[in-house]
């Protein structure tokens, strides 16, 4: 084989690309994650086992085992906050899922291409809005004297409601704002799921049934389940840590009408400065989130092949 002897030596692997090149590309993301994700979580975990009240530094920060956890689990305010959060969750989530599905089905229908693209773009606006800003918008909408909510109620003949200073009104207001912000998210996820249904399968079903409900239930729903699972998990985690929007709108009030768990934890941590107890609460919340997510994955998640 004469040609092999004359062939140039095999080219060196690309200069600048070695074993560690992928690591360099990953490093910024991993470091950032360590810095703002992992480290604070571990810090909170450690803190949750300590007496850690920063208004009394002279007491030191001794390890006290599970005392914080026992305190938290026997604290009736913690439980009532958690219950209120659960109530909030079971109120907003069904509304968001159903409304989101309706919007997605409407946008999935053929025709009116221009308007639908416009609607899809508009759906992103609430998602892109910061929670705090949503809270501010909420305060304006539900203002007793010049809010648009009362203006609309006036049109249909209802007197002005003092939304933010009555317990039920305030709860309804934060529900409405959360629904406003997160229904579009559900709609987009469901829309993606609906567009996954192969056209011919939908058509095959249309030849067998004229019921839109049967089509949804038997043919489209299986394709929506992965998205629904994602919505449930993300919304569970999100509701459990929902803070800014409610804090800006109501500060947890009036009374404890909107005192969601994250607002309560914030108060323990940054008003009473009992970081040990607050950390224990936060860790419990994290565990709860993980359990709920695993449950949803087990119960709902199905791949369609």
């Amino acid at each position, binding site marked *: 084989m004469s040609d092999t002897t004359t062939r140039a030596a095999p080219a060196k692997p690309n200069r600048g690309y070695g074993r560690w090149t992928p690591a360099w590309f990953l490093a910024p993301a991993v470091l950032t994650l360590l810095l703002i994700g992992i480290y604070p979580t571990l810090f909170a975990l450690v803190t949750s086992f300590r007496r850690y009240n920063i208004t009394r530094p002279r007491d030191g920060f001794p390890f006290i085992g599970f005392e914080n956890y026992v305190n938290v689990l026997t604290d009736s305010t913690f439980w009532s906050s958690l219950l209120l959060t659960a109530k909030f969750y079971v109120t907003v989530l069904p509304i968001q899922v159903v409304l989101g599905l309706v919007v997605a089905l409407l946008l999935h229908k053929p025709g009116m291409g221009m308007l639908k693209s416009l609607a899809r773009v508009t759906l992103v606006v609430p998602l892109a809005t910061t929670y705090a800003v949503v809270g501010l918008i909420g305060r304006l909408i539900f203002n007793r004297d010049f809010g648009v909510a009362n203006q609309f109620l006036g049109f249909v003949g209802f007197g002005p409601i003092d939304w933010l200073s009555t317990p039920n009104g305030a709860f309804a207001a934060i529900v409405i704002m959360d629904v406003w912000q997160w229904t579009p998210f559900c709609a987009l996820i469901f829309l993606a799921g609906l567009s996954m249904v*192969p056209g*011919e*399968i939908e*058509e*095959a*079903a*249309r*030849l*067998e*049934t*004229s*019921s839109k409900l*049967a089509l949804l239930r*038997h*043919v489209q729903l*299986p394709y929506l389940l992965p998205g629904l699972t994602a919505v449930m998990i993300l919304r569970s985690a999100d509701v459990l840590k929902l803070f800014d929007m409610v804090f800006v709108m109501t500060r947890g009030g009036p009374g404890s009408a909107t005192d969601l768990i994250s607002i309560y934890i914030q108060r323990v941590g940054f008003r009473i400065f009992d970081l040990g107890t607050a950390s224990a609460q936060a860790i419990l919340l994290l565990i709860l989130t993980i359990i709920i997510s695993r449950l949803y994955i087990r119960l709902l998640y*199905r791949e*369609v*092949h």
Partner: protein
Amino acid sequence: MTFLRLDNIRKNYGDTPVIKGVSFAATKGEFVVFVGPSGCGKSTLLRMIAGLEDVSSGELYIDDRDVTYEEPAKREVSMVFQSYALYPHMSVFENMAFGLRMAKKPEAEIKAQVTEAARILQLEALLDRKPRALSGGQRQRVAIGRSIVRHPKLFLFDEPLSNLDAELRSQMRVEIAKLHRSLGATMVYVTHDQVEAMTLADRIVVLRAGLVEQIGSPTELYDNPANTFVAGFIGSPKMNFVNAKVASAAGDSLLLEHPTFAGGKLTVKTPSAARVKTGETVIVGLRPEHLSVNAATPVLSLTLDFAESLGGSTQLYARSEGEPIIALTAGRPDLKPGDVLNLGIDPRHIYLFDAAGLAL
């Protein structure tokens, strides 16, 4: 008795007409095949019969009922799709039972119907499987099973065999033909494959660019194509066309001139000789399978360019002006490229078309 009737059916997408007025009727139990090149509108037409596409204008009747604007599920038609379109999350049994369940049939009847269809299609062993665990041929059977359990008035097939390999395709073709015979049902079948059309159809509708080119039985289309399009589309290999000049027309015979002809001239007899004048162009159509090699009185005298042996027969490509002339001959003639080919043909097998391509 007319069972399916299309009356001047049209379809426009915006300003673009896709189906430009198709009228056609099929009797009960007939197997009708829509055939044509891609983009001719055959699938659109089928989907309009199914109700999956709106009809822009015209009327559609199934079993004497106007279904032009009826919902798909209420037309009592079933359809087998190219991609089979099985419900991926349902078992074979559930796939076949779905339509009956939607129609709220009693469970015992559903079970009986599905079992019967599974028996006909040899799917009994697969009833519990999900579609993803089936081969292409099995999926196709399930799709067919799903359509027969409902006892529809009309079976529609949209290129059902084009995703299968060649062997399975011919096997399924035979099965569909048998199924048609045993069910005695009216079927409309879309394909771009003229072999499927020829073998399955009682009647073929040849479509081009949204218009019907010709309707007829397979042999009618083969023997009496209405124009060069149909002549070229039906038959394989494709018909050879020679654009000859009319040297003289006398009585019922025409003297045609073209360098391809032996001696540059060819005399043909046709009752419609009077319709052409001297100097005009006439298209001569010659089917490859009708050309015989080493003829005593050759019609064409050409040089062999290339020969393809198919084992039992040989396909000969002869050099000519424009497209090569193809001849299909039995056996393996002892010919080399460059040899002179003297091709003969029975005068009854010469097709003549006018300059516009219409049959003379």
